[in-house]
């Protein structure tokens, strides 16, 4: 029996954001349909995986992660190469945790120097995220932005109360920006408006909706992402940005990741793959096994599309 599907056609379009220098770039976004509903429109870019790397040894990480990284975790370059070569990640997400006052408090010029060296060694598209301390990040990020000029990175993160410094750097040095909001569609929209008021085109913004892991707010994040996507596809340009989700960071915070060996990787994979259904365009991940499972999953879903 023939089934006639009722297909929706949306007038809106998610921006296409290009990350990486000429010749080595990748694109995210560009879809005009809801996640995985291929018959309703065009979904040109499958979700990408970013491998998370710190500029210092991640002493806080779960022992299971440290175990699997081995010696590589002590050297950011080797660690990144592990992500590229072994895990086949599409991007590297470099977190400048060493600048945080409680983690080494490295100064701006030290950090910028390190970023320069990193950029020489690592040639894939790059996400560069600050330490999380607003005052420090406002010092280090402009320096890193300048050091990375020409590499068209994705810099993070701008928040509603502290966005001007990062946006100014992104404008000056030709980078894209992560706009982070606390699981709130209105704030996500307001932040995008504030950023574009400064002159940065909407096509250079990626939204971090602040996800929660499975069991820790995953479905809340899912509903926010879904609402934002629906608004964007219905024509709201200020919400029409690709999503970046910190799946690794969040999943490994959970009790479940720590309590049974092997469960952490599963938790991370489940968080990441669920978010694909919500429209995640970049997943920032940690465990090689989780990455493998997620890549497999993406290939199956997008295979032949």
């Amino acid at each position, binding site marked *: 029996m023939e089934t006639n599907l009722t297909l929706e056609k949306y007038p809106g379009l998610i921006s296409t954001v290009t990350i990486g220098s000429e010749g080595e770039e990748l694109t995210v976004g560009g879809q005009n349909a809801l996640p995985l509903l291929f018959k309703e429109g065009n979904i040109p870019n499958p979700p990408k995986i970013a491998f998370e790397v710190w500029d210092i040894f991640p002493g806080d990480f779960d022992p299971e992660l440290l175990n699997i990284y081995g010696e590589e975790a002590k050297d950011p370059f080797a660690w990144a190469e592990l992500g590229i070569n072994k895990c086949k990640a599409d991007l590297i997400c470099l977190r400048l945790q060493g600048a945080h006052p409680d983690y080494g408090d490295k100064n701006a010029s030290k950090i910028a120097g390190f970023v320069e060296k990193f950029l020489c060694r690592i040639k894939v598209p790059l996400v560069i995220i600050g330490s999380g301390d607003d005052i420090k990040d406002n010092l280090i990020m402009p320096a890193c932005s300048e050091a990375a000029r020409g590499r068209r990175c994705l810099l993070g993160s701008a928040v*509603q*109360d502290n966005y*001007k410094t990062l946006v100014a750097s992104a404008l000056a040095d030709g980078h894209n920006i992560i706009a982070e909001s606390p699981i709130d569609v*209105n704030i996500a*929209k*307001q932040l995008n*408006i*504030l950023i574009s008021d400064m002159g940065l085109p909407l096509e250079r913004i990626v939204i971090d909706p602040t996800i929660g892991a499975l069991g820790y707010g995953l479905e809340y994040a899912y509903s926010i992402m879904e609402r934002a996507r629906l608004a964007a596809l219905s024509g709201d340009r200020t919400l029409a940005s690709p999503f970046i989700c910190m799946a690794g960071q969040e999943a490994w915070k959970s009790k479940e990741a720590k309590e049974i060996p092997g469960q952490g990787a599963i938790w991370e994979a489940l968080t990441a793959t669920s978010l694909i259904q919500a429209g995640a365009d970049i997943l920032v991940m940690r465990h090689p096994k989780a990455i493998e499972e997620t890549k497999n999953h993406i290939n199956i879903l997008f295979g032949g599309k």
Partner: protein
Amino acid sequence: MRKFKIIFRPDNLTVEAEEGKTVLDAAVSAGIDINSSCGGEGTCGKCKVRVLKGAPDILTSGLISPRERKNKVFPACLTVIRGDLEIEVPENSRAAFDAFTAEEPSGIMPETKEGEFKRSPLFASPKGSVFNFGFSFDIGTTTVAGQLTDLNTGKILGTKISGNRQAAFGSDIITRIVYAEKPGGLKKLNRAVLESMGRIIESLAEENKIPLKEIHGILCSGNTTMIHLLLKIDPAWIRRQPQLSVPSFPTLTAKKAGIKINPAGILKCIPGVSGYIGGDTVSGVLAAGFYREEPLCMLIDIGTNGEIVLGSREYLAACAASAGPAFEGSGLSCGMRAVSGAIQKVEIDSKTFKSAYLTVSGDPARGICGSGYIDLLSEMLQRGIIDKNGKISAEGKHIRSTDNGKEFIVVSGEETRAGQDIVVSETDIENLKRSKGAVYSACAVLARHLSLDLSAVSRIFISGGFGSRLDIEKAVRIGLLPDLPREKFIFLGNSSLSGCRKILLSQDALKEAFSIASRITYFDLASDPGYMEEYGRALFFPHTDLDKFPTVKF
């Protein structure tokens, strides 16, 4: 109970207070009006005072910084009396930028259209008495306005406004209702409003050389909670489900009510609709007049309770926005009522960021009133001094950083009366943003309930204590009022007071008021599932959905 002497500086007032009472209690009995947004609960931090002499007990609070503790600055409501004390009350902690004096408002009250209602004063003088004077009062949560009228001729002899002294027990009605539930609370709140009214009555009677015994009646217009507290009726059920008001307000003699006019004089109150829509809204609708006309109209009261009425002669719907006292100048660092010295019009130079301003009565600037703030916000947005979120994002000699965030200097201390800078801080802007967000989202929700688009409204009446002017264009630009053709807006001044006056002079108008009250349908915003979403969207200048404000471009 041991009693101790508390001396207040710089007022040099001394009161006796019982051990265990707080400095805030003592200040109230001394007649010193200290800010207390939270009604003495210890949560708002607005009642800070300095202990000059003595050793009171200080209850714990996260609101005191180490520097304040070192300087012996504590919240008055958390400072417990255990011995004699000498206390300094700083300017910032005093309720409202100016003291509670009865002042002439600068607003124009629309005159009663002749022949609209048959003249028949509500109150009569006793046989043999030549004179007959009456008062109409608008009892607002933040501001009380009283008007003296010669009931024989219908002529207005004077109008004065004053702060509502109940502000010492909370800046919003819920806080005051909670306070009234405490032992002795209702009595204190009742006394506070009677004092505010009494000052206005005495002042106007004296100015016009009228003996108090020739005043034979007072008609009161106020929100439901205010009238309950005035009549000393327990308001507890207003805030509890099913949120009930007393079904009708009793008429009292002045003696029974505790008001100093002719003891046989009458105190009457205009009927309200529900717990949160009171006689002041009914009075405003009467003043605006659209309840008996065809076209769809809206009445927006930009006061502490932000009542909105949408309708025509076919139906009337109302809701209350709970906007807060920001547009009446309360709770803001340099806010004041629209009386002499209040900045009411501002333009900011795009290059120097210097402000050119006009004050009410042209007096040297003392602070900023509601219309002044509306102008300021619009100008600051236009000049890029603040971003759409309300954060100061420019630099210059008129912008400085303080411990509590940035502030924009409107007038430097050299030009002001008190010698202090007049500023608007990021906290002020946040307060104003919330107030305007509440008013706008209430309008949007009410329209949604009636399945109407705001563009269907023919006239929008604005009521509020703004003084003689409200810049409609700027009010739209900041997202306080909907983006509609500007000719549709009519500024009524204090519509509660003008409606009250019509009723004072006509028993037919009183009948009409009862009819209007019975026709208004109340929509509760607190229980509306879409309200918070709508409110959140309105917390942006002009609005998160920029499409709603097509004529506004910064």
